[in-house]
Structure formats: C-alpha cells, structure tokens
C-alpha cells in the first residue's frame, strides 16, 4: 500500500464538450495539509467530486488509500465539507446534535441506530469544533460560521483520516475565518487528519498549509508550500491574473 492517501493519475474530465480537467497528476501524502487554489471555473470542485466518487473520471485513475476508487469501500475514512451556501436548507428542523450524528450513518451500518451508541463520539466531535453550548439548538438558528463548524463536526465524527473541504469559508464572516482555520490546524496537527482544502483565501491559511496545488484545468504547480514560495512570483500571476490573492508564506508569524 502506498503512503499516499489520495492519488490522481492522468485524470481527465469533461462536461458534455467542455474539457474541465486535463491530465491531472496529484498525490497527497498522509498528514498533509494541501491547499488547492485556482480561479473560478478552473475545475477545483470537479476534482474534489472525482475524489469523492460523486463524479466518474473520463480517462485516468483515481486511487484512495492505494486502491482504485471503483474498489474503494471504506468511505468512513474520508470526511467531506461542501460549500455551505448551496448544500443545505437552513430551515431544516434539525438540532446540532442530530446533524453531527448523521455523519455516522455509513459507519454505523444499515438498520443500526446511532444517537445512543455513539454518544461519546458525537459529543467529542461537537466539542472539537467548540459548539458544545449549542448542541440542542436548531441548525438554522446559528450563524454561517457556526453552521460551518457543525458541518466540520459532522465530517470528523466518524474519525476520518482525510478531510476534504470545498471553500468552507464562503459565507463565514471575516473575523471568524481565522478561528476557523486555527481549528483546522488543530485537526491536522493534533489528530493527524490529512486535509485537502479548496480555497480562495490563501492569505489566511498560508502559514498552516504544507502543500499547494494550483489548478486551471491543468495542474500548473503541485508541490510543497516552500517550493511554491519560490515559483509563485514569476509563474502564477500570468495564469491567475487578479483572481488570486498573493500567498504570504511566513512561518514566523505563527502565533496561535
């Protein structure tokens, strides 16, 4: 078994006639914090959907934990947090506790009830994102940032080894974005969860990420965050134009 948790080998994808991804080669090592950056329409979300098995690649191969995706069954190892805005109905009458418990649906197995059996796991996950005072509140009563923390709790309650986040800070107010990333860092460093984060706000995450992938239908850069520092100035402005915020990769200001 390879030590890469996610591998994409020459992956292609197109919607009807529009080629969205061309020959993507990407390998995510265990324990990494990978940021996937790129302008709108660059295929970032499509790539995540291929990794999650929501879409099927048209050429090439996706491997999860060393297994071809068609043979992969241990989906509880992979947690997913989608863009909040289009993911759910805010009027849904469910409590924070119920939402987090729903993250165990697959792990518990068919015909099993989760809310009592996994009580301590659910409480732990809610605590890990600092939402313990809200567990009996309806999800619709919370702020955007709080809702997103609940969705993280739902994604980590099954104790996944990889957490995939698709622009999780869309709709989260600016002052809470930093707290949100601090929490992600804890998940990465303390729990050893591999993180794949699609994002625009590279400025905020920069001192925590270990790897960067720059996508614009093809992969323009894929490597460690340090190497990315070296190339970004000459290379990237041409591809991304004004759409990308410059990444300030400065380890010295890491006080949390």
């Amino acid at each position: 078994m390879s030590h890469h948790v996610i591998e994409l080998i020459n992956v292609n994808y197109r919607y009807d006639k529009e080629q969205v991804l061309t020959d993507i080669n990407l390998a995510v090592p265990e324990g990494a914090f990978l940021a996937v950056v790129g302008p709108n329409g660059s295929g970032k979300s499509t790539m995540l959907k291929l990794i999650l098995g929501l879409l099927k690649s048209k050429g090439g191969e996706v491997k999860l934990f060393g297994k071809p995706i068609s043979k992969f069954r241990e989906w509880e190892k992979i947690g997913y947090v989608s863009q909040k805005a289009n993911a759910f109905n805010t009027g849904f009458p469910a409590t924070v506790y119920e939402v987090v418990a729903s993250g165990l649906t697959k792990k518990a197995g068919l015909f099993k009830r989760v809310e009592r059996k996994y009580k301590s796991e659910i409480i732990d996950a809610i605590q890990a994102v600092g939402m313990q005072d809200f567990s009996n509140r309806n999800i619709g009563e919370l702020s955007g940032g709080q809702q997103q923390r609940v969705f993280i709790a739902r994604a980590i309650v099954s104790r996944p080894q990889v957490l995939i986040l698709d622009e999780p800070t869309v709709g989260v107010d600016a002052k809470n974005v930093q707290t949100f990333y601090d929490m992600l860092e804890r998940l990465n460093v303390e729990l050893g969860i591999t993180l794949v984060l699609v994002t625009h706000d590279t400025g905020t995450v920069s001192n925590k990420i270990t790897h960067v992938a720059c996508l614009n239908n093809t992969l323009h850069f894929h490597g460690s965050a340090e190497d990315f520092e070296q190339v970004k100035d000459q290379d990237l402005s041409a591809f991304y134009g004004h759409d990308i915020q410059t990444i300030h990769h400065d380890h010295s200001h890491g006080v949390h």
Partner: protein
Amino acid sequence: MLEAIFTYEFLQNAFAAGILIGLIAPLLGAFIVVRRLSLIADALSHVTLSGIAASLFLSKTFVMFNGLNPLWLGMGFSVAGSLLIERLRAVYKHYQELAIPILLSGGIGVGVIFISLADGFNTDLFSYLFGSVSAVGRSDLYLITGIAVIVLLVVFLLYKELFLLSFDEEFGKASGLSTKALHLIFMVMTALVIAASMRIVGILLVSSLMTLPVAAAMRLAKGFKQTIGLSVLFGEIAVIVGLISAFYLDLAPGGTIVVSSIIILLAAIGYRNWFAVKKS
C-alpha cells in the same frame, strides 16, 4: 360517541383506520415537507384518483371485477405514478417541477374519462374524493393496517438514512449512501400512504394530512425527532376531532379533518408569535 363506537362496526373501522393514517401520514409527511416534495404528494394523489375511477368503471362494466376493492388499483396507479415522476424528473433535469403538473392533470384527465365511461358521479366516488365515515370496510381496514405496518417498519429501520437523504443528499452520496435506491423506496412509501389515507380524508385532501401537521410542528419543535413527534400528535388530534365532528354533523370527514388541521396550524403560528413577542 363512545357508545356509538361500540355499537357500529363502520365507526370502529373508520376510527381504527383514522388513527393509523393519523400516525403514518404525518410521519412520512415530515420527510416529504423537509425534502420540499409536498406538491409531488399532491400530484400522486390525483394519479390515485384515476386508479380508483378505473376500478369503479371496471367493476361496473365487468362482472369479474365486481368484488375488487378500488384501493388496490388506486394503490397500483399511485406506485406507478411515483416511479413515473422519477423518470420525468430525470428527463427534465432543469425543470423538475414540470413532473407535478404533468401528473396532476394526467391523473385527473384519465380519472374523468373513466368517470364519464362509468356514467358519471355517484356517492361512492364522492366518498373517495372527500373521505367518508361510513365507507371504510373491513377489507379497507386490513389493507390500511398492512400499509401502516410496512411504513412504520421502513421508517424505523431506515431512519438515519432517510434523515441524511433529506438533510443533505450530496453528503449522503459522498459517504457512500445509495441515495437513488433510498429515494425510490421513499417515493413508493409516499404512494402507499396516499392510497391508505384517501378512504378517510379523500383523494383531494390526502396531502393536507401529510403537510399541515408538519407545518404546525415545525413552528414549535426543536430538532427533527421532535418535529416528527409533534406532527403525529397534531395529525391524530385533527383526525379524531375531524371524524367525530363529521359523524355528528353529517359532513365529509376530509373537510372537517383539514379544517381541524388548519386550526391547529394557526394556533401553532399564533403561539410562536405570541411567545416571540413576550420574549423580546
């Protein structure tokens, strides 16, 4: 009233059937409402009408169909309709709500043809349209009980899967849930509940028992389980009050049940608003 229930078998049937659908219609209704499928339930009930009309026509015209309970054909049409809706929603990916008017008008259209063929309206059909206190027979009750057992069992066993499907289908898919199969099971269950409920509330008002108690519960409940619990409570109150008043006032129970549900709904909205004002 109690005395009447012990005396008349038809009343026993009506109340037993009423209590069963007061349980299963709001139970499934809670999922239907949060999945925004209320109108689909309405469309399906109209398809059920064409099944009932077809059955009434067949039993009138052919001797061999004489003893056939129209509920069977109604149920068959309703289940077929639920599968057809899924096909239509796949065909019109960007206009999924088109499936609703297509089935709604199609159901009534086919129904009206059979009604005309069978020589028009009679009291029997009226009882299917708006419900009846006196028309629930033993065979109806057995069928309704069977449907109730199936629905309760499926919701109990697949509760967390149905919750996830309703709350966040994409997350369900990403965690390996077979949402397509689950959705199909759900639609078939909806069709079954509609077939079961129409004897009491009537085809045209079936969807009210699936949506009004849930709408009231959502104003008051914390969480989804509580929403289901309150929906069932409100549904049962509406059915029992509706049946009693229908019996004494000699009205169609569909009407009295819907009016009771609306009173409960208004009370829930009023209570919530009053409570909100008091708090602030």
